[in-house]
């Protein structure tokens, strides 16, 4: 949680917080890398970062939002804080759009608000006026603040809303899905400890919360990078589970009523499952862009709840369905042929 402002004067951060929005890009075709660069060009003079290995990935420059408000706290204590929240957008394989807002908090800050230029040279840092109990704030952030308290989710939302209006999007998504929200906090780990996940919670309303411990000096952009990756894969699981939920199995297969009827009714399985095959199955690639120091965090998630295990089971189920369907249609072909 280091890499603070230009001067040496910036105190080290004790808490990093953020929120990620993940959704399907509402276009019929995935955006290619050039279109992605155009789509994410939030600033005229800054490049969109483009990567083609191990998958297509584009990330916008950071944009800042100024805040001056109380921080959410678990015990209702009022701590005013001033600074900037950094937000960025990323597009994976031209198909999944994520907006992510984050900031880090030093343990204490100046007693009164400084000239705004002081905060602009510390991008993504929000300084408390006075001292801060980072545990209280961490709990407050994860629990969701009250109205008027710092809300990074709103900032991620605003960027998402702005991007979803982009003229490059035809607003015709290939499948139905819901956006998810992932809210995270990262506290410093012990002096000799590696990173760890203390809690990962699936809550209602597509909200996930993550509480991390990271070694001191881990840049908050890297933590945000891990959380983006986690949010992406959690969204993939959520979305594919829902696709399969929409599939009532076995009996619903309409009885064969002749060739024309079969062609119309039969594709129930294919119609439901195919968009997932076309647009989602190739996106699974945990840790693709997680820095080495934070990669061990994934191992915990693979152990329990077992992200990749569940994904493989889902993929296998989809393939089985398609195979059964293929066999079924062959069987009917045989039946219909005198």
């Amino acid at each position, binding site marked *: 949680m280091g890499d603070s*402002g*230009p*001067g*040496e*004067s910036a105190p080290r951060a004790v808490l990093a917080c953020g929120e990620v929005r993940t959704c399907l890009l509402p276009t019929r075709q995935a955006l290619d890398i050039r279109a992605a660069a155009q789509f994410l060009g*939030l*600033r*005229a*003079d*800054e*490049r969109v*970062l*483009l*990567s*083609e*290995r191990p998958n297509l*990935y584009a990330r916008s420059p950071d*944009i*800042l*939002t*100024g*805040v*001056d*408000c*109380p921080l959410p706290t678990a015990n209702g204590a009022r701590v*005013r804080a*001033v600074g*900037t*929240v950094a937000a960025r957008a990323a597009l994976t394989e031209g198909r999944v759009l994520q907006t992510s*807002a984050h900031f880090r908090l030093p343990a204490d800050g100046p007693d009164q*608000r400084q*000239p*705004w*230029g*002081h905060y*602009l*040279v510390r*991008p993504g840092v929000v300084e408390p006026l006075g001292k801060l109990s980072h545990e209280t704030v961490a709990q407050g952030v994860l629990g969701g*603040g009250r109205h*008027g*308290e*710092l*809300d*990074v*989710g*709103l*900032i991620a939302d*605003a960027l998402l809303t702005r991007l979803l209006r982009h003229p490059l999007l035809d607003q015709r998504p290939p499948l139905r899905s819901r956006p998810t929200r992932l809210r995270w906090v990262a506290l410093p780990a012990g002096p000799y400890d590696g990173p760890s996940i203390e809690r990962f919670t699936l809550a209602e309303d597509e909200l996930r919360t993550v509480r991390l411990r990271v070694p001191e000096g881990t840049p908050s952009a890297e933590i945000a990078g891990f959380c983006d990756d986690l949010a992406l894969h959690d969204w993939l699981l959520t979305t594919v589970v829902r696709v399969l939920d929409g599939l009532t199995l076995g009996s619903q297969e309409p009885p064969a009523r002749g060739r024309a009827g079969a062609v119309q009714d039969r594709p129930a399985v294919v119609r439901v499952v195919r968009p997932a095959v076309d647009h989602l199955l190739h996106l699974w690639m945990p840790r693709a862009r997680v820095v080495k120091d934070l990669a061990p965090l994934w191992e915990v998630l693979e152990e329990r709840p077992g992200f990749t295990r569940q994904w493989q089971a889902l993929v296998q189920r989809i393939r089985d369905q398609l195979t059964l369907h293929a066999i079924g249609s062959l069987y009917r072909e045989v039946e219909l042929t005198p």
Partner: protein
Amino acid sequence: MTEAVFRETTAEPRTQAVPLSHLSLELGHLYMEDFEAGPQRLREHFAQVRPWAEAARAAAAAARPGGRRPRISTCFLIDDYFTRFSSPAELVPLLLAEADRAGLTIDYLARESGCAVTGKVPLAQAVAGRIVESPPPGSYGNRPPAAQTGWLANGERSPVARAPQAMKTAAAWQPPKETAARRHSVFLDVELWSDDPDGHRTFSCPFLAAVWQLARLGLLRNEGEPVFVPQPHTASGFPEDWDELPALVRLNPRADPFAAYRTCSVMPNRFLPVEHAVRVILDQTEVDRGALRQVAERSAREDMTVPDSVADRISYVFYAGP
């Protein structure tokens, strides 16, 4: 840390560095009215500037540890954006002669329209995209209240007075509020640009002056590349058309680098309101992070103190004069 085996250059941010002096000393702005006032005006101007320029040099030398010679470059800005007048061939030799008469050397000459668009880079538009408005207290991540497109304030504007309905008294006037006020406000609302009916945008003088300050502080980049790079003056004379003159010309081949850790501008006090506006703009502009870091690292290696805040890196001498 071990070196990564695999790298993708398009996936990494990169920012090219620019050479830096300790001080960029501006010897003046020239507008059409100055030119129309005749060479006498220029002569008076440089005579007024001379002692202050020397004072600025002495102050820069005093700030340099170990009595080493500070790197100082001088510059002069000509307005060719708001009004086109004269020609480089006519004006520049006159300007140089008058500076020389006062014992001043102009190292770099810049055209104001270069602050709007340099080559093909829409510089002013890009800087406009970097404005991060100072949040009034109570901003919690919601949309900024009543952002006025094309305007930038140093606080909260007065609420818009609506026409009172019949039988209702009009709402009492609410004052605007400077966010960084000390007890009382000095509220300033700056017009950054205006658009004509054809959609043609004209940037305001304070906004271009803010871009000019960022250029002098070495903090402008376009996709990581330096912009507003000085071109050597190789021809014997100066062109007939302003467009043929590079946006920034190095007139003195032995000059120290154009960009510097700090700037100082010597100008008549009629520029005071413009320069107040420049500070309001710079205080709310997020500059390229790579460039900011490079300046911080280089100045630290030289034991030079550079203020964190960009607006605090600029200084002025206002002399009494037209």
